[in-house]
C-alpha cells in the first residue's frame, strides 16, 4: 500500500514554542498577503527603530533621529552588516527653568542591522534630512535579481 506523505513537518518535542512560532509567522504572512505590505512586526527593541526596504539595486535603511547632526552619527558596513551608532544630546536649559514635560530622550545608541543579501561595502551612502536618516546600500552584483531569457 502506498502511503502518500504530505508535507507534514516532523515536529518533535524539542520545543513547544516552535509550533507557536511557526503559527505566528504564518499569521504574519497572511496579514502581509491581505494588506499588501509588511504587517507591523514586533520591533527589535533597539534604538533607533528602522525601516528596511529594497529595490532592484539597493537596500534602504531609514531611521528617525530628530536633532541629530551628521557629526553625532557613525555608520559602518562590514560584510552583510550595517552598524549605526551615535549619541543624541538635547539642549538643557539652565537651572532657572522648570519643566512641564520631559519626554524627549537623550543618550547613546548602537545598533547592528543584518541585511538579507551581500552588499557593496565601499559604496554605502547616507543622508540626514529633517531628522530622518536614509542609508542607501547598493546590492552586490551577485545579489541583484537576474532576468533569465527563455530560449
Amino acid at each position, binding site marked *: 500500500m502506498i502511503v502518500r506523505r504530505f508535507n507534514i513537518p516532523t515536529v518533535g518535542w524539542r520545543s513547544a514554542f516552535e509550533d507557536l512560532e511557526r503559527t505566528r509567522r504564518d499569521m504574519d504572512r497572511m496579514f502581509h498577503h491581505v494588506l499588501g505590505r509588511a504587517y*507591523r512586526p514586533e520591533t527589535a527593541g533597539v534604538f533607533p527603530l528602522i525601516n528596511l526596504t529594497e529595490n532592484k539595486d539597493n537596500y534602504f535603511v531609514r531611521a528617525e533621529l530628530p536633532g541629530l547632526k551628521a557629526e553625532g552619527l557613525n555608520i559602518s558596513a562590514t560584510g552583510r552588516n550595517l552598524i549605526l551608532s551615535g549619541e543624541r544630546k538635547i539642549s538643557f*536649559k539652565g537651572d532657572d527653568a522648570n*519643566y512641564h514635560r520631559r519626554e524627549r530622550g537623550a543618550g547613546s545608541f548602537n545598533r547592528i542591522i543584518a541585511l538579507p543579501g551581500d552588499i557593496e561595502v565601499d559604496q554605502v551612502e547616507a543622508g540626514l534630512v529633517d531628522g530622518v536618516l536614509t542609508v542607501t546600500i547598493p546590492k552586490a552584483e551577485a545579489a541583484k535579481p537576474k532576468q533569465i531569457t527563455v530560449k
Partner: protein
Amino acid sequence: MTETATKELQAKEKMEAAPPAEQTKPGKVFTPAVDIFETEKELTLLADLPGVKTEHLTIDLSDDVLTLVGEVKPFEGPDEEDLLIEYEVGTYYRQFTLSELIDQNKIDAQLNDGVLRLHLPKVEKATPRKITVKAG
C-alpha cells in the same frame, strides 16, 4: 547649555494620537514627544518632528490653546518593497492649553533637523505702581 548624556537610548514606538476630528485624509496620527519648560519670562517648547518640513508645519495659538500639526510625506520611493517596518509615518498632532498669557507678537519658532523650538514669551505684567498717600 548642552547636556552630555551617557545613558543608552531606549527604542520607543510612536504613540498614536486620537485626532480631534475625523480625518479626511487617510493615514495615521502620532503624538510627538515634547519638552516644555518655563522661566519667569517665557515658555519654551521642544518637539521631535522627524521628517516634517517647515512648509508642512502649522502652529496655531487661539484662545489659549496651542495646536501643532506636522505632516510627513511617505519616505519610500515608488519602486521600493518593504522588508522590515519598525516605525510608521503620518501626521504629528498635539494640543496644549496654556495657562499663562502669551505675547502673540513675540512668538518665535524654529525647525531644525526635525526638532521644533518654540519660544512663547509671557505678557509682561504691568509694573506695580507705588501709590503714595499724601497727608492732607
